[in-house]
């Protein structure tokens, strides 16, 4: 359930609205009521008593959704005490849901939402199976108030170079171990009672972890698989076929090489467009990846993996356009595409009646550096455009500082 704390009616009038689900609408009104989009269009009656926001000359889009990151889970990367994202010592951490590690008071949240990011994935980190990712809105005083719709939205597994140690040092070992875990989860679901009486041979993971995988194996929750090398992507596709999983590919650096195959499988991808430094995990990484995938018909979402700078999702999108994505594809890739990939497309990602009112009013093209953020609404509530960084600016704007 989504918590709406505020019952309020807001009319954003006169701007150019980019609903994402349809073409842009000039001189349109977006009506927000009780936290949801109540109307969008050029013929919207503004109720008496509504708070009016004049957006003439402005651009209005859904709030941006970052398809990665550890918002709320990682305050300062280099300070281990502030990191809640990994369940150490458990290579198959399927039962690990990060939600209760989220700090709603994280200073990263205001810094990023004032730049138009309203929703991010909060992803665990680990070895073979990292755990359960949730989607959070970047406002709320409690974890319950932040988690967007259901939790989790994905089970995360790593099929890249990063998980090799969990596979005995071989990619083949990783794939085989993952199958063993899946097989045992299915076996567990069939013979759970006897397992619990310890009458069977040792299974490949704990009861809790095996049980947590059942929604994935039943296709209720997608498997978000990190894979960058072409052959790793193909392994992910193969395993997804074998177990009839709903697969989402994360990273997918060499995805462009087999874009048609990914498109044919109907598998969405989450990519970071500005990645192009070759590693042995992805020698084929290149700027045009997002564009080539989109062109082949793959549903592409974008991510910014530097959690503290999730706000650079905008720059990722701009660069995706510079290297061949259409602007419309890029906007979709940071709004509706991730919402759909993570199963919340009915509630998030576009400016349609009934959807959660995460809305941003921009001075111009959201991907451009010259563009500022004028208003941010999360669940229909206007967000203050202050952050710790704006406070620092004000303190040191003139020297000596104001203490």
């Amino acid at each position, binding site marked *: 359930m989504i918590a709406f704390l505020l019952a309020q009616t807001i009319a954003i009038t006169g701007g150019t609205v980019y609903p994402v689900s349809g073409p842009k609408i000039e001189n349109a009104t977006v009506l927000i009521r009780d936290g949801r989009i109540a109307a969008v269009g050029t013929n919207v009656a503004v109720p008496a008593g509504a708070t009016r926001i004049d957006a003439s000359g402005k651009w209005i889009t859904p709030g941006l959704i970052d398809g990665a990151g550890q918002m709320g889970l990682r305050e300062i*990367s280099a300070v281990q005490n502030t990191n809640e994202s990994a369940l150490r010592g458990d290579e198959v951490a399927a039962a690990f849901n990060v939600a209760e590690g989220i700090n709603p008071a994280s200073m990263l949240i205001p810094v990023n939402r004032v730049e138009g990011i309203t929703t991010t994935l909060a992803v665990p980190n680990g070895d073979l199976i990292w755990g359960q990712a949730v989607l959070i809105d970047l406002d709320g005083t409690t974890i319950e108030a932040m988690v967007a719709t259901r939790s989790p939205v994905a089970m995360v597994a790593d099929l890249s170079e990063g998980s090799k140690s969990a596979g005995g040092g071989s990619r083949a070992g990783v794939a085989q171990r993952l199958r063993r875990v899946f097989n045992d989860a299915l076996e567990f679901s069939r013979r759970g009672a006897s397992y619990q009486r310890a009458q069977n041979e040792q299974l490949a993971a704990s009861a809790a972890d095996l049980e947590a995988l059942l929604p994935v194996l039943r296709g209720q929750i997608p498997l978000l698989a990190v894979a960058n090398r072409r052959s790793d992507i193909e392994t992910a596709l193969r395993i997804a076929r074998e177990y009839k999983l709903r697969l989402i590919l994360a990273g997918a*650096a060499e995805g462009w090489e087999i874009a048609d195959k990914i498109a044919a499988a109907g598998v969405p991808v989450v990519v970071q467009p500005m990645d192009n*430094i070759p*590693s042995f995990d992805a*020698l084929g990484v290149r700027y045009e990846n997002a564009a080539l995938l989109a062109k082949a018909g793959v549903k592409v979402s974008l991510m910014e*993996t530097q959690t503290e700078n999730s706000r650079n999702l905008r720059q990722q999108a701009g660069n995706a356009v510079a290297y061949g994505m259409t602007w419309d594809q890029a906007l979709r890739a940071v709004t509706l595409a991730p919402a759909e990939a993570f199963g919340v497309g009915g509630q998030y990602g576009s400016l349609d009646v009934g959807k959660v009112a995460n809305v941003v009013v921009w001075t111009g093209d959201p991907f*451009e*550096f010259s563009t500022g953020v004028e208003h941010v609404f999360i669940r229909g509530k206007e967000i203050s455009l202050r952050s710790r960084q704006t406070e620092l*600016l004000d303190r040191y*704007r003139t020297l000596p500082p104001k203490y």
Partner: protein
Amino acid sequence: MRQVSAALLLVALTVGCASARAGQAGAAQSSPAPAQTAAKGAAGDSTSVDRPQYPSTYKRHPNPPVVIRNATIMTATGQEIQGGSIVFRDGRIVSVGTNVDAPADAVVVDGTGKWVTPGVIDTHSHIGVYAAPGTFAESDGNEATNPVTAEVWAEHSVWPQDPQIPLAIAGGVTTIQALPGSANLIGGRSAILKLIPARSVQEMKFPGAHYGLKMACGENPKRVYQNRGPSTRMGNMAGYRAAFIQAEQYRRRWDKWNADHQGDPPQRDLKLESLAEVLRGNIFVQNHCYRADEMMQMLDLAHEFGFKIRSFHHAVEAYKIADVLAREGVAVSIWADWWGFKEEAMDGIYENAALNQQAGGRPVIHSDDASGIQRLNQEAAKAMYHGRRAGIQVTRDQALRWFTANPAWVLGLDSIIGTLEPGKMADIVVWSGDPLTVYARAMQVYNDGWLVYDRNDPAHQPKMDFTIGREP
């Protein structure tokens, strides 16, 4: 640098300077001489050295004269010329303006709809010393075996076949300072390099450039050496001081011997040679330092030993002491928006560059990152527009200077590169559009007049040995 994360949420903890690198080093030489004449003097003319040391073998690539016509030319000297042309020949800019005479044999480039700027210069790179593909085999940036390794030279680590080099060239970069990392208090000498395909680093060494000396404050050295020391910031300071006290004595011995030539010359010491050259002003201190209070300590250290810090690097809190930095004439090489990845980076703000500009300082947008170096124009734009939105006046020319003329000054090369003026080296980028937008891409890059990159011509898209033969 931040690795391409194989994984989605991972902030690579082994980030470059941000976590454990950062450095500088320097090439020794007296003053920035014009490129062509400086070549013979090359680097390494230390007072205590009686022989050439790893001299630059850089040679200008022969190329026809070029005229770029009808472009918007941003000169980094205050002008943005609409419908402008620029002529260069033999590696030198001949003329810039709306009415120029082009030689009859010039290659004509249609600049309609294009922007032209000076080549991008990065004061803080680890390209070559932390080469891709990023395995231990290429990890040559931190000689993390002693807190003071002034004796190491980054150029002895640089791999000229680093596949990151062509990527940076395609981002418009023509000159870099390749630095040792920031594990050490004093990490070693930097290499100032023309970013061109070459078989050896000597062919890339910028003729006549001053070496830099990489020094690092704060968390990195005290973390790396916590078991043997320094393990505290006061330990860091004691370490710098002990090193420079030795260097003072070494310098005195050599100065005396050079004056009287009595007896055998003093024993050479590579570590103290680098530090003595700092004391003589021949090597520029390039100082990784995040926090304002630590930068103030380092200024005091410099005063104690009578040297200058040329630039603080990273300097996420420079805005807190922008008045002092401007007064001291120390440049700040900074990011537009990196912050929070470590505790000493917590107070980074977008307006850092703009506030330092406003205070009369010399901001530089640097990368410390093989990905970021490809988009220094974008980072400068980000910092400029955020400054403006905060009500701080920043001109487009100033923002351009953040990645051209100002870094040229940090490297002591501002009389040679960094602006588009007659007589300057023809390091030139042709952009597809306004370089202060997210959509502009470098279309052509000329380095000393040589067309090292042309986005529309595969014949001018250099690939490194590592990359070829791997096409899918």
